């Protein structure tokens, strides 16, 4: 079976961030699916079973941590690496995110898009 493009799901209600990231990832030949709230995000992940999830925390309908918990609790999708991308930069948020099983925790205001792409490439072995 020939490998198609790797799929990345972005769960993000901030369209600016979502669009910038989507554009960049598509340039890297990823297939990108975007959900704008927590609930639809979880549904999308279950449907698509992507190779990686980029997850915001402050989301309508369902908090990012709840989405993350649900992903890690479902064996069919629990292995998918999740990168948290958020404006919540506090120590305990970071700690909690990593404890819940996120592979990385990035602050939107700190990280460069290029650095984030590098991280994703590394995780996906590209």
């Amino acid at each position, binding site marked *: 079976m020939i490998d198609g493009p790797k799929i990345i799901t972005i769960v993000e209600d*901030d369209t*600016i*961030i979502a669009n*910038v*990231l989507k*554009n960049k990832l598509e340039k890297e030949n990823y297939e990108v699916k975007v959900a704008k709230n927590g609930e639809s995000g979880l549904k999308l992940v279950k449907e698509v079973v992507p190779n990686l999830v980029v997850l915001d925390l*402050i989301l309508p309908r369902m908090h990012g941590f709840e989405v993350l918990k649900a992903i890690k609790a479902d064996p069919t999708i629990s292995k998918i690496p999740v990168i948290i991308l958020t*404006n*919540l*930069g*506090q*120590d*305990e948020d*970071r*700690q909690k995110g990593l404890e819940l099983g996120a592979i990385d925790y990035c602050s*939107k*205001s*700190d990280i*460069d*898009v*290029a650095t984030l792409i590098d991280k994703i490439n590394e995780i996906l072995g590209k």
Partner: protein
Amino acid sequence: MELSPDGIVLHDGRKTVFANKAAMNILGAKAQNQVIGVPISKFVHPKHWGKVKERIKKEKVGKDAPLREEKFVRVDGRIIDVSVAGRPVAIDGVSLIQVVFRDISEQKASANKIKESEEKLRTISENIGDAIFAKGKDRCFTFVNPAAVQMMGLPQKKIIGSRAEDVFSPHDAAVIKYVDDKNFQGHQVNEIKTLKLGGNKRNLHTVQSPIFDNKHNVIGITGVVRDVTESKKIEEALMNSEERYRIITAQTKHLIYDYDINTGKIKWDGAVNSVLKHSLNYMNSQIDFDGWVKMIHPDDRKETIRLLNEAQKKCCNFYDQYRFKTKGGVYIYVEHSGLFLPDKDGRPYRMLGTMSDISERRAIDKMKSEFVSMASHQLLTPLSDIKWLITELTGLAGDHCSTEQTNKLNQIRKSNTKMVELVKDLLSVSRIESGTNFILEYSTFNFSSMIKEVLKQYKSLISAKNLKVRLSFKGESCRCEADQKKLEQVVTNIFSNSVKFSKKGGQINIDCECGIKKIHCKVQDFGMGIPKKDHKKVFTKFFRADNATMSDTEGTGLGLYIAKAIVDAHGGSIWFDSQENKGAQFHFTFNKKPFK
């Protein structure tokens, strides 16, 4: 002779030949033969016998012996004092000696007593602290004891025979005259009078009485004066402090308590009713130490008691904020500060202090923190968007950008970074304020590499101001296990100030001493320094020294406040030394291993 109250004895110079009834009584004889025929030497005190013999010799040759006092020995051996006279008599041609005597033992004893008590009085009057004096009808002093002499501050010779107006100031003499007049009108005086003896105002408790003759005419005055200046002062001070305490407890919004450690009893006072809704009576009768403990919120109790025990052990100040139950079961936040008092052995026996309701203040603080936190998060969202958009824009423009366009984009990026940093600082402050400790993310890194990294970030600024930076490391290895990101913030916050406040072409020295357990870092500049009056405020939030705000409007005054919180979390300390216009030296230390 038989009926005479005086004892009469006849003797022949050797033996008694007659004794009347009184003599028998005085000598304690029950039968005649106990006296008659008995040698007279038996009845004379051995010590007096020599003299008595001489007297008898004289009497024998017909001379009267004058009345004298002698000691006789009674039949029962008791010695008595007698006054005695003897003279020769001839009875039926026999020459005898008649001795008349009277028992004066009691009289002598009471005379001795009077003498003794006079002596005692004299001793008292001479040694007593109270002044004792007497004045005659002419108002002249007739007697002053040593205390009176001392009180008047004049020699005794000068006082005796003088009137008050001769020896005292007109003011004092007038006061004395007023008191004496009352005495001469027949009244006693018992008052506190103020005299300006020797220029010092003294309060004198004066008890003065008239001396009457048997026709009830006043013939003099006698008085006792006590200097109560000191005790009056103490009394006044006590009254003042009592009064003050009463006013304070009535007006205060605090609870005031006095806790007796040995009995566990607490005396409550102050705003008990308005704060706790309990009556003062209820608190004082029901709430002892154990009662107080039960009123603390169960979640806060353990920590509060721990702090209290610690303070009690050291016998020092206690301070805590905790939730406290009021009458309706509603918990309020109280701020409690107290002081343990040591007994003479240095052990705490008592605690005094206040408790006040700070619920409102806590609520406002919480709202403020939450507001800052919320606003900061809301600000971060668009700031992150801008940051990401700049990157996108730079990428889109690619090589088509002119130099000017690239510069403008860079300026936007810098402004964006500054705003992000400011918002993050505000977030840190709101967290420090709300009492949430930093969670340190420990990693192992080299402190020297970290500093070099910070310097790299400032390269363009350093060269723009033409600054010379010297960096030195001494001692052990600089490897440490700490929160790298946060310590980097400390170095950045201190170093950026040095860069900002150095003059062009100035020097900055960074010296690090790596010990086995701690690293000590010193950042020294020779810039504008901090004015002395601002030294106390350097580590407070939003602090900016006056000279800094004059020359530069940038900066939030949060950098050193945050740096201190980070250093504290690492179990280190931060301090500085600075003189205006001469520069500043900032020091900080931190543990190389995680601090528990």
